[in-house]
């Protein structure tokens, strides 16, 4: 099993000289009249990162019992990275993996390795059996709904008042309507029509007793942003994202309801080039999104991510 990471780049990041994007050009050309370096200008990824860190810190300050939902995919790995930036190397709340038991072997290997390496307080919670799930849902959605139920069980078990989830607005239409701090009902449900206003980075962070909040620190990122940042920061990824025999996974879910897409992108650079020209949406390989018009929305209203 090989998991992608690049020790030499991490070593470079750890060197004493400042990383790219946070340093300034040679002193001689940059000294301003007040004798200090001008602030380095922020690029797009710096801005995204700073915003996510701000959200993480707000969540940690305003909620009592947080957990981060770790799906092992590229987005939640970026999220963990951002949490470590926000809290100076550590993740000060549990990483919760709601396990359907049907992930790819590569995903479990990744979890076991980086759960230790990143010193995560890893909590693995199993999902209930398929037989216990609403049989009126289409097959893939029904399968995915197990995760929602598993999540509810975990919520009941630990009493979390905030769950940090790595969804993004550009992924899917109903996710685009999300707030950064998104209140859930006592049943974990989401009422898209009655969302509180949210502006100026002031968040609604007072869930009623028994209810909880979903916190979305990377809501404003795009798929391309995730890859560009993964590359810049050298965040390890599961190799299934890279092309093998003309196919790769753009999004990773349960084995039986996730399909690869045709691709020749064998590294992140190539993924970015591919994304720039593609006309296929990211979750195209996710069967559950396409079964019926409203399958995904039904799942989300019920508490799916």
């Amino acid at each position, binding site marked *: 099993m090989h998991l992608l990471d690049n020790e030499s780049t991490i070593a470079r990041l750890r060197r004493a000289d400042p990383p790219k994007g946070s340093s300034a050009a040679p002193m001689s050309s940059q000294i301003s009249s007040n004798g200090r370096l001008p602030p380095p200008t922020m690029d797009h990824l710096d801005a995204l990162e*700073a915003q996510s860190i701000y959200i993480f810190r707000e969540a940690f300050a305003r909620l009592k019992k947080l957990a981060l939902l770790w799906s092992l995919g590229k987005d939640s790995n970026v999220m963990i990275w951002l949490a470590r930036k926000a809290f100076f190397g550590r993740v000060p709340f549990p990483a919760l993996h709601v396990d359907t038991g049907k992930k790819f072997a590569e995903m479990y290997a990744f979890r076991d390795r980086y759960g230790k390496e990143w010193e995560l307080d890893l909590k693995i919670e199993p999902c209930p059996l398929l037989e216990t799930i609403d049989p009126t849902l289409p097959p893939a959605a029904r399968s995915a709904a197990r995760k929602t139920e598993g999540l509810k069980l975990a919520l009941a078990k630990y009493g979390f008042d905030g769950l940090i989830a790595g969804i993004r607005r550009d992924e899917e239409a109903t996710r685009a309507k999300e707030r950064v701090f998104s209140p859930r009902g006592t049943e974990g449900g989401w009422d898209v029509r009655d969302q509180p*206003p949210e502006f100026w980075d002031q968040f609604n962070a007072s869930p009623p007793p028994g209810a909880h909040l979903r916190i979305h620190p990377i809501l404003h990122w795009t798929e391309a942003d995730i890859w560009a940042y993964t590359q810049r920061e050298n965040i390890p990824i599961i190799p299934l994202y890279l092309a093998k025999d003309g196919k790769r996974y753009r999004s990773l879910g349960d084995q039986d309801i996730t399909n690869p897409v045709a691709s020749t992108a064998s590294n992140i650079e190539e993924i970015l080039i591919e994304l*720039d020209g593609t006309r296929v949406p990211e979750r195209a390989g996710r069967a559950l999104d396409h079964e019926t018009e409203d399958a995904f929305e039904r799942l989300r209203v019920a508490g799916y991510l």
Partner: protein
Amino acid sequence: MNMIIPTATLATPNGTTRPQVRIVIVGHVDHGKSTLVGRLLHETGSLPEGKLEMLKAVSARRGMPFEWSFLLDALQTERDQGITIDTTQISFRTRSRDVVLIDAPGHAEFLRNMITGASQADGAVLIIDALEGVRDQTRRHGYLLHLLGVKQVAIVVNKMDRVDFSASRFKEISDEISAHLIGLGVTPSAVIPISARDGDGVAERTPRIEWYDGPTVVEALDALEPARPLETLALRLPVQAIYKFDDRRIVAGRIESGSLAAGDEIVIMPAGKIARIRSVESWPVTPLQGSPGAGRSVGITLDRELFVERGDVIAHVGSTPRDTRRIRARIFWLHDKPLVEGASILVRLGTRETRATVVAIEKAVDPGELSSVETKAIARNHVGEIDISLAQPIAADPYTDNSRTGRLVIEVNGRIAGGGLVLSVASGQRAIPVDIVPVESALRPDERSARYRHNGAVLWLTGLPGSGKSTLARALERRLFSAGGSPVLLDGDTLRAGLNSDLGFSARDRSENIRRLAEVAVHLARNGHIAIVAAVSPAREDRAAARRIADTAFREIYVATPVDVCESRDPKGHYAKARAGALHGFTGTGNDYQPPAGCELTIDTSRRSVPDATDEIERMLARSGVLFDELVDLAANI
């Protein structure tokens, strides 16, 4: 799989130089937002291949004229099927920009969603139907853009084909909306005549609008600038948290403006404590060299152990925010229940949250209406100016000084109910960056009120010179003292001999004179005394400021003696001097006295005796909770 998605819905990979700008299209419902979006996608080459032809064919088959808004509907349907794009976050490219379109519904019902969307935008397009002209939602959205701080606004006057591309109709609408927006401090970057349906003015200046020589919509979007971090302003670092994960004590927050570096001398506001930045911490590399600027989330350590907490604001010595308990704000209100005077609210400003009371509401209006009817409560989707008294001091800036630390939100029952701009913080409250530690009185207010049988108060007697203010004040002082109370007379002229001897009679000096009187008076009131202020205080605005300072302790008494009676009395000989031209700027012979509108009591001393008037004041004080109207069980209060 037959799945299509416009190429442009994907963000530019990092490393390109194309700036990304986020825009909202706002305006009255049915003024053509969907049509403009459809047309923009087409004109910028962002539509999936064959899509347009397909929809045109479908329309023809059904015998309906093709509408551009079908395109959005069609995309929406496909989106619902998980196939194409998301109409709430559409992107397209202009010549030099990636434009991300943020959803902002036009229905009044969804104003909170419009605000959520527009607050994230770098710029806005306000769309107006050429036939219908400026409507209530047009004005409302315009006003909200101003309150949300969206400065780059382009106006498009749509459906010009319905008014035969009339230049005069265009000018009429252009003048009306421009005047409205400029009045709010928003200068439109362009006003563009278009027909979104036919394409005029969207990407091309067609012959039908040859009289127009400004930019097209696409050109106007191309000229938008992404919001810039406020690096050139003074440092403001609102503290989010203090972390002690290891032996470091890290003060974490996001730099809202300015920049900082290790070695900087900083002030922690509102307490005003000084320290030096020892290091800027980071991960995985630490410490961070250089000076991080606005927009960065940072963590710093200080060179000494000081009490710092979430909500404090770190600034540089000499350019600190103001430390205040009183704020005047212009707000929009989204809660079902109107905001009223006396309401208890929670205010969030930066990372500080504090309980607060709405002391006064002024200019409550529906921003959609032309002739604004002022009310004393701010209804849902309306705006207003309010004075807020905060339960604990806060560090803030007027929004004109710093847009990030000059805005606040209001929460009711744990849910954001409104927000707005800080117009002013109580003047003269700029804190001195030294270790000021206010010493609290050893006595509790109830101990004092049990002895005096009254609560602390500020009685403000205003009126023309010679109206009888001092006479009444002295009589009242004697009356209260005889009853065991603790009145203190603050006469305007007496204080001018000492505390205010540096002040003249310019409008500015008069304001400062009133402010000092009010500050001294409220200090006495807080300590259980009844401060009786006798001062002409001709300016309504100054008295309003005094009321803000004294807050709920304030009782205004208008001594409304007719001017001819005042002049005939002329106890200090001022009228005579003024008539002789020896006393310039004298209130009384001039017309600068502004009588109060909403005072607690009005007394005309030409019609009643001094004891009678004093009785009346006493009754008002009893009625409004200052004097205990009957003997209370003193022991119960101690």
